[in-house]
């Protein structure tokens, strides 16, 4: 049974029936799914949720579907890694990495939002799904569409990493690359969505799609033992995940699954594309769009649709925003790999580097719990780090050659001393 009561404009409050509709026709504000929270509170408990399969649908009362989940039965419930070596390096007591670099099936947090959007697309009777994407979303839509047997069109900027292009193409969608940046792709897709009436997961299905992002926050709280983290750092691109994690925490409190407690949320952006962080620093809620110029292509969105709501959520939580340079982003990727054995894409490097910066600034205290959001996988973006990785040394298959190499290298290159766990 569903607890969804309808759609409502976040700005003017106008109500709408459930449909493939994302914009209020009166004020152009975004539409958001409404629920009967009293009903949900009566229907769920920690025990009912814990007894369910470990996928994102374990929180289904708080997700906007009417029928059984059609897709995403292996998506979500990714590890919350206790990051002790990274914590030692950053000089903090309690640090976790919420690791969506291993989300099923396409290795990014997008498998959450797409599972919800495509289930909704099927419920609403669509046979074609589509998206505007910087890569990860296209990968996820293509894979889920293949599994659901739906027609798929994806639209991407023409400068993406090879791994992201092939990582969609393998599922045989129709791929269209637009000469321009993501904001150009997005604008065109808004007009295509208007004309072709497909299920664009991040346009006309956006109210449902974004709800899927809440599961990232639900899981963090459940995995912490039904507690909110005191600090959580989240990357910002279009601005979907951060406000939805904030909403997830509020909903968990509202339906009685966690106790209310301060939980500060921080926005992480690349210096070469930081319209939201810039606005936070100006103490303004007006976003000035920028032309992106950063190695972190998956978060290179200069005109973030939900940027305003990121600012509001950060402000309400008592958090902050920071940006870092491309060099710091690369260093962040290396730091996470070297200390925790997790290889993330530049968006994750951004979050790691911003967390480091916020700790050094004293904005995040060293003795409170911190969660770093890793939302994408480094194996898709090897171009970003390839220049800094030494080529392997080639030797003949003879022990004497290895001995000579070992002698020449001196002290064996142990990266660090071992720790337990």
């Amino acid at each position: 049974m569903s607890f969804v009561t309808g759609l409502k404009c976040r700005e003017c409050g106008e109500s709408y029936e459930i449909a493939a509709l994302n914009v209020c026709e009166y004020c152009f504000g975004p539409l958001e799914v409404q629920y009967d929270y009293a009903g949900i509170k009566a229907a769920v408990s920690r025990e009912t949720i814990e007894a369910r399969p470990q996928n994102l649908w374990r929180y289904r009362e708080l997700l906007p579907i009417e029928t059984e989940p059609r897709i995403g039965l292996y998506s979500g419930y990714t590890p919350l890694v206790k990051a002790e070596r990274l914590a030692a390096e950053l000089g903090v007591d309690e640090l976790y990495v919420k690791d969506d670099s291993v989300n099923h099936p396409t290795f990014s947090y997008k498998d959450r939002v797409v599972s919800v959007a495509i289930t909704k697309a099927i419920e609403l009777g669509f046979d074609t799904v589509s998206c505007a994407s910087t890569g990860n979303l296209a990968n996820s839509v293509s894979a889920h569409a293949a599994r659901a047997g739906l027609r798929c069109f994806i639209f991407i900027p023409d400068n993406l990493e090879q791994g992201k292009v092939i990582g969609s193409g393998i599922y045989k969608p129709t791929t269209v690359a637009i000469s321009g940046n993501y904001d150009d792709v997005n604008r065109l897709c808004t007009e295509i969505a208007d004309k072709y009436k497909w299920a664009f997961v991040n346009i006309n299905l956006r109210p449902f799609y974004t709800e899927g992002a809440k599961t990232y926050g639900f899981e963090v709280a459940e995995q912490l033992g039904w507690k909110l983290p005191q600090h959580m750092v989240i990357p910002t691109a279009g601005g979907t995940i951060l406000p939805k994690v904030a909403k997830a925490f509020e909903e968990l409190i509202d339906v009685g699954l966690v106790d209310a407690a301060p939980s500060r949320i921080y926005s992480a952006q690349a210096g070469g594309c930081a319209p939201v962080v810039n606005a936070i620093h100006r103490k303004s809620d007006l976003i000035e769009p920028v032309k992106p110029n950063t190695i972190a292509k998956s978060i290179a969105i200069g005109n973030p649709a939900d940027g305003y709501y990121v600012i509001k959520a950060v402000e309400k939580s008592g958090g902050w925003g920071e940006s870092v340079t491309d060099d710091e982003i690369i260093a962040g990727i290396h730091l996470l790999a070297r200390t925790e054995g997790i290889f993330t894409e530049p968006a994750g490097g951004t979050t790691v580097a911003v967390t480091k910066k916020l700790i050094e600034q004293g904005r995040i205290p060293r003795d409170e719990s911190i969660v770093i959001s890793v939302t994408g996988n480094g194996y898709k973006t090897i171009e970003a780090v390839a220049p800094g990785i030494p080529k392997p040394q080639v030797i003949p298959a003879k022990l004497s050659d290895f001995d000579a190499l070992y002698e020449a290298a001196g002290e064996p290159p142990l990266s660090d001393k071992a720790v337990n766990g």
Partner: protein
Amino acid sequence: MAVQVRIPTPLRKFTDGRDTVEIDGDSVSAIIANLDVKYPGLKDRICDEDGSVRRFVNLYVNGDDIRFLDNLTSAVKEGDEISIVPAIAGGR
């Protein structure tokens, strides 16, 4: 000085269902003013009480966001295309 203005679905009830209309004017603000003369009520949906573009509306001249041009005073000429696009879209 006719400019093509692309109308998004939520505003087409003002334009008798047309997705593109031709409007005279030499700047974006002049186009919006003339649009409202021809299709009364449209300006209210695009601009707030102060006359600024609403938070959730983006305007483009030949594909360029007017915030990268001269905002509402951006010049337009014969044959240009203005798009009115709801801001809420996107993802990654």
